[in-house]
């Protein structure tokens, strides 16, 4: 017995020594990594031969190859013409997209504004040479060179399309005209739907509360819902804490939210056009703020303007450039905009809608309906952004940064 104990002690020592050796190796490895990630990468100078495939990360409904519905397909033709097989991984949140991009296994991503600055800062994406994307020329001017796709004057992506987050409710159980977010954000009204409210599970939702307060508590002086100083931020967080008891479900997976509305587990909440139109397609009794009002309640709304970005470590850069050109080609961009229910980025897409099957791709006047060419309208939509300590105005470094948002979100959910 003694002997046995002695031997296991010796083994333990060997393990400890091995561990130390490993830690030294790890520390050394870390140093090496840091050097390589700070390298500035260059944009491609010409598109060469296709590599045979392209691996994408996208929002639901952005890359459809006919597997959802045979008529809903803007991928198969691209695959045939370009020789690039398209593989897509659907992500539910911007954080998930960043996490997937950092695995280095994907060529590109359809990033929203709360992901793109972090991807650029983290060195996960490469600049995009827009000269290699012929269809970029005719993209709406107010989508070019924006703070969420251009950094220090360098282009990091191709605009995909934009839209506003929706208020959706069950017509049979919820009494609202959708003109105000108060149905879920005024604690008194929300109490009527105790346990029936569905909210997007992402710290960025704090901006929705801030936007509501911007309209209802003007003395807080909120201008931009992503640039909140401590007082404004706490007010928004407090509002969400009052909303918390009435929430039936937080969703991050669009399929989860669709099933909750379809099963009658929740009755009212925030959503995307994708879920809304899917549920309508299944004849569920859902409604949203009328499209004729741009889907916007009177307090305006948060939204997104998405950007296709290319990974710094893309294994198939040529195919990725071909994809970026394809997704903003008039026909493909019209299809994706109509299918998802957003405004296209491509100005020439507007003429395409009349050629599409109205059963799947909506109205021929899609561009007017969705205000695609109406920059004034978009001033009412607050695209998802990454909160920084620097408020970007004369308040200076007084704002709450994204880490504060994440920990506040943890606190709100409890």
């Amino acid at each position, binding site marked *: 017995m003694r002997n046995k104990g002695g031997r296991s002690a010796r083994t333990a020592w*060997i*393990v400890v020594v*091995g*561990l130390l050796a*490993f*830690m030294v190796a*790890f520390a050394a490895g*870390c140093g090496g990594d840091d050097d390589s*990630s700070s390298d500035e990468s260059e944009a491609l100078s010409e598109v060469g031969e296709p590599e045979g495939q392209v691996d994408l990360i996208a929002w639901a409904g952005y890359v459809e190859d006919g597997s959802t519905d045979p008529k809903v397909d803007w991928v198969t033709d691209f695959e045939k013409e370009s020789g690039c097989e398209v593989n897509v991984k659907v992500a539910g949140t911007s*954080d*998930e997209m*960043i*996490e997937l991009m*950092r695995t280095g296994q994907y060529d590109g991503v359809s990033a929203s504004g709360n992901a793109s*600055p*972090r991807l650029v*800062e*983290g*060195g996960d994406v490469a600049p995009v040479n827009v000269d290699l994307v012929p269809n970029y020329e005719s993209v709406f001017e107010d989508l070019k060179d924006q703070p969420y796709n251009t950094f220090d004057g360098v282009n990091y992506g191709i605009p995909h399309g934009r839209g506003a987050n929706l208020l959706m409710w069950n017509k049979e159980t919820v009494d609202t005209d959708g003109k105000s977010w108060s149905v879920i954000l005024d604690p008194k009204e929300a109490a009527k739907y105790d*346990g029936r409210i569905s909210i997007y599970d992402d710290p960025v939702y704090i901006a929705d509360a801030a936007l509501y307060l911007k309209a209802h508590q003007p003395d807080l002086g909120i201008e931009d819902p992503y640039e909140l100083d401590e007082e404004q931020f706490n007010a928004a967080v407090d509002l969400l804490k009052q909303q918390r008891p009435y*929430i*039936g*479900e*937080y969703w*991050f997976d669009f399929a*989860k939210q669709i*099933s*909750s509305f379809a*099963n*009658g*587990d929740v009755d009212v909440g925030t959503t995307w056009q994708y879920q809304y139109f899917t549920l309508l397609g299944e004849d569920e009794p859902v409604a949203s703020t009328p499209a004729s009002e741009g889907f916007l309640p009177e307090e305006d709304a948060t939204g997104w303007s998405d950007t296709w970005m290319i990974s710094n470590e893309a294994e198939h850069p040529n195919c990725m450039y071909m994809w970026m050109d394809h997704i903003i080609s008039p026909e493909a961009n019209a299809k994706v905009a109509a299918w998802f229910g957003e405004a296209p980025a491509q100005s020439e897409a507007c003429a395409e809608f009349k050629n599409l099957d109205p059963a799947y791709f909506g109205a021929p006047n899609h561009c007017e309906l969705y205000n695609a060419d109406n920059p004034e309208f978009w001033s009412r939509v607050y695209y998802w952004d*990454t909160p*920084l*300590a620097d408020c970007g105005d004369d308040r200076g470094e007084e704002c709450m*940064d*994204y*880490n504060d948002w*994440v*920990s506040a*979100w*943890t*606190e709100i*959910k*409890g």
Partner: protein
Amino acid sequence: MGRRLSDLFHSHPRLQVGGLLAGPVGWLVIGYIGSLVVILITAFWQVNALSGEVEQTFTLDNFQTLVDEPVYRSIAGRTIAIAALVTITDALLAFPIAFYMAKVASSRMKAVLVVAVLLPLWASYLVKVYAWRTILSSGGILNEFLDPFGVSGPGYGNVAVWLVMSYLWLPFMIIPIYAGLERIPDSVISASEDLGASPMTTFRRVILPLAFPAVVAGSIFTFSLTLGDYITPALVSNNQFIGNVVYNNIVNNQPLASAFVMVPVAVMIIYLLIARRLGAFEHL
């Protein structure tokens, strides 16, 4: 050269064993313990708010945050409580099943039961959780079934998490208990009866003490699996568990996530020390 090498190994048996074990032990150290050490180190670093990149400067802020913010304490408490409840539930459910399998069933029945217990493990975890999501939904099977009795199911929440986890990890409790009961010779039970002990006394004084280490061994699985899961809570409740907080922070604030991971690691170390005291490792 080859000859000299074999002479060397022959005269130094420990070198021989060392050479054989270097590969597997190296993997264990680097892949397994190594990753734990990396987590431990990261917990003392901090993060750049914009890029989410880790800055390698020593700080105790992450642990300070976990102690200061009541929300983290309540999340840790909730996670540990559910893990304990799941473990107790599974032990209570698994013992009779395992006892039947080990001591009562015919050998054919035994084979059928072992397969039946292991079969659910072949189905995808996600499919099973989504199935429970449907069952527990307000318009789901459970409510349909309970409706005539005028009651309704638990809906989504802590109770749902407890139910689903108990279902998911049950096989991990049955199998060790079954193995433990198999090792009790029938003659011991007969002897107890021959000496006049009632069935209850035999169970309490003979079977239970002999099988207890096996129950503890099973509880290690159910407890640690519940402690680490984050998908089930996200799908059948709105409540956050340790795993959800780790998941939500892993992209932006890996150091905080790492610091929080230390909580279940510490809980498991304490648990394993107690389990070892109770003799559970003879049954793993």
